[in-house]
């Protein structure tokens, strides 16, 4: 067993519950139910990315994970991976349990 953000070319990102929660936050903020959570995506490349969406995203994450984000935390957001990393640092497991056979 290993813990990792596991990507499968055919199935996309294999997600645990928290990762799905994060995807839901993105889907709501960007009003896109098919939003793909790709860690390498730069936030500014997301369609309709703007500063108000950044705040909505931060507030959505705070609400979904019951945590408090500081301005400095938000300033570190460049890619989706940065957000995942920050949540991990706040002891929220974002990694899927993947069986290696």
């Amino acid at each position, binding site marked *: 067993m290993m813990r990792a953000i596991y990507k499968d070319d055919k199935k996309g990102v294999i997600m645990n519950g928290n990762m799905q929660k994060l995807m839901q936050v993105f889907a709501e903020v960007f*009003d896109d139910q098919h939003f793909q959570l790709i860690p390498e995506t730069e936030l*500014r490349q997301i369609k*309709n*990315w*703007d*500063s*108000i969406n*950044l*705040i909505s995203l*931060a*507030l959505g994450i705070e609400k979904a994970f019951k945590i408090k*984000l*500081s*301005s*400095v935390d*938000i*300033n*570190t957001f460049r890619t989706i991976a940065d957000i995942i990393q920050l949540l991990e640092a706040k002891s929220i497991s974002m990694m899927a349990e993947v069986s290696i056979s």
Partner: protein
Amino acid sequence: MQFNSEIFIFLFLPFTFFGFHFLKNRVSNTALVWWLIICSGLFYSWFSVKYLIMIYFSAVINYLLCIYIIKKNKLGKSINSLLLISGIFINLLPLIYFKYTNFIVFNLDTIAHFTIHPFNLILPLGISFFTFHNIIYLIDSYYGRAQQYPFANYILYVLFFPQLIAGPIVLYSEFMPQIEKLSSNTINQNNIMMGISLFLMGLIKKIIFSDYLAHWADPLFQAAAQGQGLGFGASWFGIIAFTLQLYFDFSGYTDMALGLAMMLGIILPANFDSPFKANNIIEFWQRWHITLSRFFQSYIFIPLAMKYHKKQYGIYLSVLFTMLMSGLWHGAAWNFILWGGFHGVLLCINHLWRRIYSKAKLNWNDYLLWRIMCVLLTNVSFAVSLIFFRSSSVQAALLLFKNISHFSSIASSHLLGHFHIKLLLAASLLTLIWILPNSQTLCGIKKEAAPLGKQLSSVLTRISSTYVYAILIAMAIGSIILYQGLRLVSLKTFIYFQF
């Protein structure tokens, strides 16, 4: 010493460049950093030795304060908060003194009828930029994000000559990793040639386009300053000419800064990304003076919006306040504050429209004609806002606003007077800006998916390592200097030097 002066191009640049590459594999990384510090000091001392000492001391004090905060981080939040507030105050004090004293005096005289005479203050060049670099490191040290860097590396972060006078505003986290491996970093011939190309593109933007456009824009704004009414056509022509002048001036300066850094193996963040191709004003500000927008977003907008988000208008007021601060940063005068406010209102309208567009599930953006109209509206909005930016007073700005909205004169046959040809030239320039890939794409800093950008970039990469190209560059620089030397155009200061 300006980037477009003969002394910089023929003396300072070769001295710094060859010195750097000679020392690169012969001395330690620290010695190489000190070489760049010495060269940067020499560069600034051309403006003022007194102010150079001031920058140096402010950087030293800030560094010591940050190290204290980083090391004693666990001592107590209240002590650290006190140090942070005093640090920000110490950093802002010279900026407030040099930039805003006379504005405060002017308002006291006007409102309270004081009779204080304005002070004779000369603004130290680049004061806003080195102040911001100091503040970024200070705030991040307080929040435990910054680590301790060697003293010399920090001094170079503040003093590095390509970014010292007018940015880009670089984050220490972008700069320090590059400085740490300055001597081991491989700089190939291609990087150097691309750096030279970028520098040259900036030089052409400045001397050929910006300085020439200034001859068109200046008389119109000077006439407005003297209260002379201009016609509808002349006023519109004036603001279009100034919009192009400002773009070529500032993006030209940035290209030169990025090119210079590239010649030394350092990649600075982009400050422009084809702003006139933006579809809306939100996108425009994501493409124009990017590093300043990033600074204001990180250190003013986000803290404010996170504090006042409970009411929806709290976030919109944060946008407005951030843009007012941006206006005040650009200049200590009411017309700059109005300029910021104007953009704040435009951004709020744009944000509201985005929400309406999304909720109503509209698909107008799928139509080319709609997109063209959006680009035009964005460009015109920005050009109109520059009336506040360029006018010498609010009265002059209001006069120009009156003139550009005097639609009844459209029917007049002498609408454009003798501006026909010039307007055609300005329109051609704008079309080129819309069609061509930008200088960073051409020089490979930014990878663009658009086929034209890709092709032109690969052509430039292929020919850049040939001798023919080197000769062409030498000839281009030579003729530009000759052009300047013959006083076909006079050496003009970059617009953003005043900020």
